[in-house]
């Protein structure tokens, strides 16, 4: 089936209730729509409770998306909360060519994820302090928008400007500007690190 869908790109987002997991998938889909792509975002339909593990999905494609099944084999994983590493099977269906963006100020080694670097393309796996970036720009450690900026840089699937437009459409005033700035800062950070790895 993958062969028939050359432009399909599937994202799975893990976080906790209250971190904006569902909003993140929706914003990605809006940014993709602004760039003329077809996009489908949906939550994992659990009983959402603050702090409970939550999953959301976003599919991107050049053609209309008909399937309604959850994303089982994501091309990209966004993990908003590193404490989920010990609670949820985050890497289920995550293939060797997948992209991973993890919200953490610690390295994969420090997080005990060295084996992940062995099994996957290391230049596609990044841990970024998205919560800290958000705290600086927003005053609150909500990693959502920063990670979307990082996603744009890591995967090259979306432009930073589209992500920022989607953020500003959703959040007005200071929340919108703070989140857009966090997205930009994380975009820069990821661009530098991906560029650094490419040169190394």
């Amino acid at each position, binding site marked *: *089936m993958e062969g*028939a869908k050359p432009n399909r790109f599937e994202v799975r987002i893990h976080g906790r209730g209250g971190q904006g997991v*569902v909003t993140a*998938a*929706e914003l990605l*889909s*809006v940014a*993709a*729509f*602004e760039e003329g792509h*077809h*996009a*489908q*975002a*949906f*939550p994992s*339909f659990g*009983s959402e409770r603050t702090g409970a593990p939550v999953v959301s999905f976003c599919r991107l494609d050049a053609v*209309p*998306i*008909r*399937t*309604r*099944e*959850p994303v*089982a084999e994501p091309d990209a994983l966004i993990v908003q909360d590193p404490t989920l590493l010990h609670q949820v099977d985050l890497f289920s269906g995550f293939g060797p060519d997948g992209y991973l963006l993890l919200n953490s100020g610690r390295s994969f080694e420090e997080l005990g994820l060295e084996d992940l670097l062995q099994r996957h393309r290391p230049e596609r796996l990044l841990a970024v302090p998205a919560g800290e970036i958000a705290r600086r720009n927003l005053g609150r450690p909500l990693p959502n928008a920063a990670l979307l900026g990082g996603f744009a840089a890591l995967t090259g699937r979306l432009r930073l400007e589209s992500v920022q437009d989607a953020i500003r459409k959703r959040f007005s005033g200071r929340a919108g500007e703070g989140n857009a700035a966090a997205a930009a800062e994380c975009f820069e950070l990821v661009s530098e690190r991906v560029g650094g790895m490419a040169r190394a």
Partner: protein
Amino acid sequence: MLRQTEGSAAVAETVVSCRPEVVCAYPISPQTHIVEGISDLVRAGELEHCEYMMVESEFAAMSVCIGASAAGARTYTATASQGLLYMAEALFNASGLGLPIVMTVANRAIGAPINIWNDHSDSMSQRDSGWIQLYAETNQEAVDLHVQAFKLAEQLSLPVMVCMDGFILTHAYERIDIPERDAVHSFLPPFEPNQVLDPADPMTIGAMVGPEAYTEVKYLAHAKQMQALDTIPAVAEEFEAAFGRPSGGLLRGYRIEDAETVVVALGSVLGTIEDTIDEMREEGVRIGAMAIKSFRPFPLGEVREALAGAERVLVLEKALAVGVGGIVSANVRIALSGIQQQGYTVIAGLGGRPITGASLRQLFDDAIADRLPPLTFLDMDWARVESELKRLAEGGRSGAHAENILREAGIVAGRSH
């Protein structure tokens, strides 16, 4: 206007464009975003001359809708699951009185066991309530069907349920062309009721009817639904002419012309089915699908015509009639009376279990090889069922199946009951 938005938000906006004069609803997942959205738009002054009423229950919501519609107001509500069941008595009154109420059902399972996820148990349980039932395949169609539903309801003097898959559609963000308000206004003129309760000109509706006339009055309700078999495609055609895209109607075939195997289904699962069919067509398998858009009235003649040439008909449905099996498939069988072909019923997606392309592929392969039993439960964990049946046979008490199965699945800890 083309927008990337949530299904519920798009439905809310479109319902407001249809200019209901009374909206009365009680929130229940997964319908809540729709009625909250309408409430916000009414409060923001987007809809003049509309009374948005808060009530204490779904029974009250439908009762207020009945009163409002009888008094000549264009009337809308939405519900799901237990809420629809709580309305049941009033549903039959709304249709029996010929009141053109439009209601969204954000399809969800019913308890017990309590479950908030999607399937069609709720609307299927009310299939004989006298309401027209339309099923949306996509959020685009859900939006479009609401515009058509008010027109249908008012032309036929019958209430209409627009059924859309809860969560799968209501909570999905996708590209939706939201009908422009002016276009909706010209498609859907203000409601001209053909019966109005008016204190200045008193009359009663809903008289008690004894054995001498009950059959005739009931038959008239059936006759109106039969008339809807013409009105539904006519309104869909009119919609396509006005808005430039096909939506609604009675049925839709997909790669069905030369298909030996036809999959019949309702609602959003058609998308995943179509992807699987395309994959099999690439390999030369003659398989197609038929979407049922109008389940009530059930288009017997059109279904027969669409399926008569197939060797094999597989009905995939998201509800279980306990004690017999399929609901949709029973209706399809009536349509195919006297035609010799293989018929399969597949119960899938109950309580929100994902229906995956991989499972569908295996299922269709099995059907084509004629390896399927007449009644199949997609992705059933038979080991869990067998273990619980064994426990029962050994003298275990019934009543704690939900807890026992959850414990076997490792989802909750605890002792067996």
